[in-house]
C-alpha cells in the first residue's frame, strides 16, 4: 500500500513538473495540479473497476493518495506566494500598451496565433482591440479593452509572426513577398525585425517592431481584394 502511495507520489510530482514546463497552452480553466488530478483519477478509478484481478484497494489507495497530494498542494499554495508561483505559475501579461509581448508569449510556449485564437474566443479580433491581455495561470485569457481603438469590420490575418512571413496568408491576400518587403522598407524596417504584423480586409495594419511600440498603419490592397 505504501509502495502504491509512493508510486502515486512520484508520478504526480513528475506530471506537475512536466505540466508546468509545457506552459499555459496545455491547461484549460484549471490549475496545473488540478488538471493532473482530473487526468489521472479517471484512469485510477477505471483500472480496478474493469480488471477483477486487481484488488479494489489498489485503486482506492491511489485515489486517496492523489486526494492527499492535492490537498497538500492546496495548503502550500494558500500559505505561500512562492509556492503558489512554483506550483501554479504566475499570470503573464502578453499584451500591454506597447503591444504584444513576445518574450512573455515564448516563456509560456505560446505563439501569436495562440494569442489571436484566445482573443477571438473572447470576441476580440484585432491585437489593438486590447490594452492589456493576461494569460492567467490556469491558461485562460483575461482582457482589458482598448477604448481608443475602432473595432474593424474585417478579420485581421497574421502576415508576419516573429520575423517569419506566413506565406499562406500572403497568398490569400494576393500579395507578393517583394511588395511586403518594399512596404516594410518604407516603414524603415525589415521582415526579421518584425515581431507581429497583421492585416485586415480594409488594409489596416498592426505592426509591432522589436523593442518599439506597435503602430497602426494603412496598406493599399490590390483592387478587388477584400475579406
Amino acid at each position, binding site marked *: *500500500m*505504501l*509502495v502504491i*502511495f*509512493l*508510486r502515486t507520489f*512520484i508520478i504526480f510530482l513528475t506530471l506537475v513538473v512536466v505540466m508546468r514546463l509545457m506552459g499555459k497552452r496545455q491547461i484549460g480553466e484549471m490549475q496545473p495540479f488540478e488538471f493532473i488530478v482530473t487526468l489521472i483519477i479517471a484512469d485510477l478509478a477505471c483500472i480496478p473497476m474493469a480488471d*477483477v*484481478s*486487481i*484488488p*479494489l*484497494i489498489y485503486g482506492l*489507495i491511489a485515489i*486517496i*493518495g492523489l*486526494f*492527499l497530494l492535492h*490537498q*497538500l498542494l*492546496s*495548503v502550500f499554495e*494558500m500559505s505561500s506566494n512562492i509556492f503558489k508561483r512554483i506550483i501554479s505559475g504566475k499570470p503573464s501579461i502578453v499584451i500591454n500598451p506597447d503591444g504584444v509581448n513576445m518574450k512573455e508569449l515564448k516563456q509560456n510556449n505560446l505563439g501569436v496565433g495562440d494569442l489571436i485564437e484566445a482573443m477571438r474566443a473572447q470576441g476580440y479580433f484585432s491585437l489593438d482591440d486590447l490594452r492589456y491581455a493576461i494569460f492567467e495561470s490556469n491558461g485562460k485569457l483575461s482582457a482589458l479593452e482598448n477604448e481608443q481603438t475602432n473595432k474593424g469590420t474585417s478579420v485581421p490575418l497574421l502576415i508576419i509572426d516573429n520575423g517569419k512571413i506566413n506565406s499562406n496568408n500572403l497568398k490569400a491576400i494576393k500579395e507578393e513577398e517583394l511588395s511586403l518587403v518594399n512596404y516594410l522598407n518604407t516603414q524603415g524596417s525589415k521582415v526579421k525585425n518584425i515581431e507581429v504584423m497583421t492585416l485586415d480586409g480594409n488594409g489596416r495594419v498592426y505592426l509591432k517592431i522589436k523593442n518599439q511600440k506597435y503602430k497602426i498603419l494603412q496598406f493599399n490592397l490590390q483592387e478587388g481584394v477584400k475579406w
Partner: protein
Amino acid sequence: MVKTIITIICSALIIAGSAIYESNFVARQFNEFHAVLSILYDKVDGEVATQDDVYAVQKNWIEKKHVLHIFIPHSEIKEVDLWLSEAATLVRDKEWHDAISKIEVLKELSEQIPMSFKITLENIL
C-alpha cells in the same frame, strides 16, 4: 483551511494505518502458511505424507486467501492455488520427487509475495 488540514490528516492516517495493517497482516499470513508448508515438505521428503496432509494445507490456505484477496493481486493467489493442487495430486500418486519440487515453489512464493509489499527500490520503480 482548517477543513483542508483535517482532510489531509485523515487521509494520511487512512493510508498509514492501512499500510501498517496490510504489511503486518500479509506477513503474518504468509509466515503461518510457510510454516505449514515446511511441515508438509518434511513429510513429503520422508515419503510419509498422505493426501489428507495436503488437503489440510489447502484448507488452511483457503481460509487465508479469502482475506488476502483484499490485498494481493488475484493472479498471485491463483498461482498458489494451482501449485497446491498439483502437489496434492503428486502426493496422492506418491510421486515424491515431483511433489517436493512443487512444495519448494510454494515455499518460495510464500516468501516472495510478502516481499512485494516492502518499501524497496525495486518495488517502487
